[in-house]
């Protein structure tokens, strides 16, 4: 099938955007989760507004807002890849924030008390004691959200990003073999996500709580 190399190029774009966006998204999520749990009301409030705003609006609206909306102000100019990465990162960040918050809160408060009683500061306690334990508990949900975000990248084709879905569209109309092309695109997504799941299972076993 002569479309395969082109689809492979699309897959490359998909993975490139996914990897950058998911790392950014995780960092955003971590910061927002900590803001959410900080003992300062205004920070909690900012974090909550962010999470609610993202969860309460469709991904595609967020994408259009960032790409068309922000660009229309002529203050900054984002190309479509940048807008795509930012949207996926901000979107995933809100969900990661909730996952991380719940993970941190699930750790027994005796752990914090023990660490603080030794003389650890609040941030050392978070870094050495709470987050490593919380992270293990969060892994399955983090995997889940990562898979959702990977699939969300397919929506970036609507702002002209040449990802796997976009290349599929082009190939489908160029070859008139819509059935074969979309089946292939589906199988490629499936394989990537399946590999991601295997990786997650491996990581989970490595970090299993003893």
């Amino acid at each position, binding site marked *: 099938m002569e479309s395969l190399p082109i689809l492979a190029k699309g897959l490359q774009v998909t993975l490139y955007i996914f990897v950058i966006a998911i790392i950014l998204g995780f960092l955003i999520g971590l910061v927002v989760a900590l803001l959410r749990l900080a003992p300062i009301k205004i920070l909690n409030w900012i974090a909550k507004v962010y999470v609610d705003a993202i969860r309460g609006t469709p991904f595609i609206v967020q994408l259009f807002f960032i790409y068309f909306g922000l660009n229309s102000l002529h203050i900054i100019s984002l190309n479509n890849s940048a807008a795509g990465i930012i949207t996926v990162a901000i979107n995933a960040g809100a969900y990661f924030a909730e996952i991380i918050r719940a993970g941190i809160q699930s750790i027994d408060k005796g752990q914090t008390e023990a660490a603080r009683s030794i*003389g650890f500061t609040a941030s050392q306690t978070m870094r050495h004691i709470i987050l490593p334990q919380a992270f293990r508990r969060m892994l399955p949900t983090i995997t889940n959200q990562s898979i959702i975000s990977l699939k969300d990248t397919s929506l970036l084709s609507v702002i002209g990003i040449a990802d796997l879905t976009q290349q599929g569209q082009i190939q489908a109309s160029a070859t008139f073999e819509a059935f074969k092309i979309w089946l292939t695109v589906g199988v490629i997504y499936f394989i990537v996500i399946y590999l991601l799941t295997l990786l997650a299972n491996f990581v989970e076993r490595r970090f299993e709580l003893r």
Partner: protein
Amino acid sequence: MSIITVKNLRKSFGNLEVLKDINAEVQEKEVICVIGPSGSGKSTFLRCLNRLEEISGGEVVINGHNITDPKININKVRQEVGMVFQQFNLFPHKTVLENITLGPIKILSKDKAVAEKMALELLDKVGLKEKAGSYPGELSGGQKQRVAIARALAMNPKIMLFDEPTSALDPEMVGDVLEVMKQLAKEGMTMVVVTHEMGFAREVGDRVIFMDGGYIVEENEPNELFGNPQHERTKAFLSKIL
């Protein structure tokens, strides 16, 4: 000079006042046992001594540091005050050895090899040297608690606080933990022990404090307090448990 001074200590949770007016002094090398019915405020009192509970009023001075002063670096003071919990609270993602060395390495900036050598000595002292590489999940309750004691001692504290250290243990495990605590007392550690172990209080305690309803009702040498209690509430409590 006393190493712990507590003056007019008050502690409220919302509208509930659990410590009403606590005054106490502990001398260096003294072993104080705190007894009383549940809800009497004895654990809260102990937790105020390293400010795990924020103090609502009064003054607590630990080894010369007034920990009720909002400007004090409480983390520094806590390094001098070890604490052992009813539920052990070992770090499950760290080995026994790492549980003990984490504080010395990260807080006291000790060399890893030095910290590990000291940790092994402490483990030897509590009889668990062979468990250095195990994870807390692989230990029995009594072993966990002895590791927790070693972890607190690794910071080389001046004072040790024990919050019902044997209450979560199977009866046959209690002896080992009490043995370690007795040894510690013998070595001259200043200890405040919230406990239901009247035998321990009697044998090891220099003084026993009886608390009820957020007050210190009575304090005395163990033989006096157990043998000749002065207050009705002390008598009623002792008659129920002895």
